[in-house]
C-alpha cells in the first residue's frame, strides 16, 4: 500500500491522509506533486510525504511520529 500524508509539523498533526494500491504508484506520485503545488501556491508550509508499507498498521508502527502526540510516544 502507498500512503500520501500531508503533515502539519508545528501542530504535530496529519492534515490529509490518502491510501493507494501499490499498482497506483504513478497516481500516488502525481497526487503528491499536485498537493505540493497547491500548498506552495497558497503559501502553506506542510510536509508532504509518500510512504510505502504492507498496511496502515505497519506504517503506524514505523512512522509513529505522524500519528501520535508526544505523550503517546513516550508512554
Amino acid at each position, binding site marked *: 500500500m502507498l500512503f500520501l500524508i500531508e503533515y502539519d509539523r508545528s501542530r504535530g498533526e496529519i492534515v490529509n491522509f490518502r491510501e493507494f494500491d501499490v499498482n497506483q504508484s504513478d497516481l500516488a506520485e502525481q497526487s503528491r*506533486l499536485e498537493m505540493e503545488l497547491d500548498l506552495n501556491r497558497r503559501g502553506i508550509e506542510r510536509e508532504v510525504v509518500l510512504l510505502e508499507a504492507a498496511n496502515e498498521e505497519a506504517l503506524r508502527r514505523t512512522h509513529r511520529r505522524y500519528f501520535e502526540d508526544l505523550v503517546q510516544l513516550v508512554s
Partner: protein
Amino acid sequence: MGTEISKTQIDRLGDRLRKGSITDSDLRLLDQYRRSFTEAYEMVAGAIRNKLGLEPTGRPAKSTTSIAEKLQRESIRLTQIQDIAGCRLIVPDISEQDRLVASLAKLFPNSTVVDRREKPSHGYRAVHVLVTIEKKIVEIQVRTALQQEWAEVSEKLADLIDPAIKYGRGSESAVKILAAASHLVAVHEQSEVKFLESQQLASQAIANASLTDGTSDDIISIQREVDSFREMVTGNRAIVFKELRKFTEDLPEQE
C-alpha cells in the same frame, strides 16, 4: 521519466531550494529528480521482501521540506544527498540488528554500512546500509525498537519546538534530554547484549556442570548472575522512558 536532467540542473535547483523560494517549475523538476530513484528503490525493497522475507516500510522519495532543510543546514549539493530514497526495518534488539545488517551486506555486496551506534549523530543511533544501483543510492535504516522510539521522540520534538533540535542546536533543554535518553538507550542495549551473553554462558556452564561433577551451588550462582542482568536490563528501559515522560510533562503548552 521524461527527458534526462543534468547534474548542473539539479544542483542549481538545490541552490534555489536552499534560498527557500520555490516555484511550480522547481517542484516539477524536483519531482522528476526524485522519481529517477524509484527503480533503484523498488529493486532494494523488492530484494528485501523476496530474499530476506521482510517487509520494509519505504519512503520512495524524501519530502521537499526535508530536502530544503538539509540543504539549508549542510553545505552540500542536492546531488550529494544520500537519502533521497530509503526504507526502514525495525528489529527487537542489537543482536538482531547485527544479524540483519550482515544479511543486507551479503544481499547487496557493494553496499556501505554506516554504524551510528558507536558514534551517534546528535544522539541518533542506528545502522544505515547504503545501496548503490545505477548511480542511485537507496538508504536502508536498520533500527532496534528502542533506537526507533528515541528517533520518533526526537523527530516529534523537532516538529513541535525546533527542527534544529535533531542536530544538537536550538532548545538547550530538549537537546540535553535527548542526549541523556540516547545515552540511556546505549547503556540499556549494551546491558542487553551482556545479558544475552551471560545467558548463553550460563546455559553452557549448566550443561557442563551436569555432565561433570558440578554442584547445585555452581548452577544457583550462575542463575543468580543471569537474573541480576535481567533486572538491570528491565530497569534501564524503565529509566529511559521515565526521563522522557518527565521532560515532556515539563514542556510548555503548544500553541
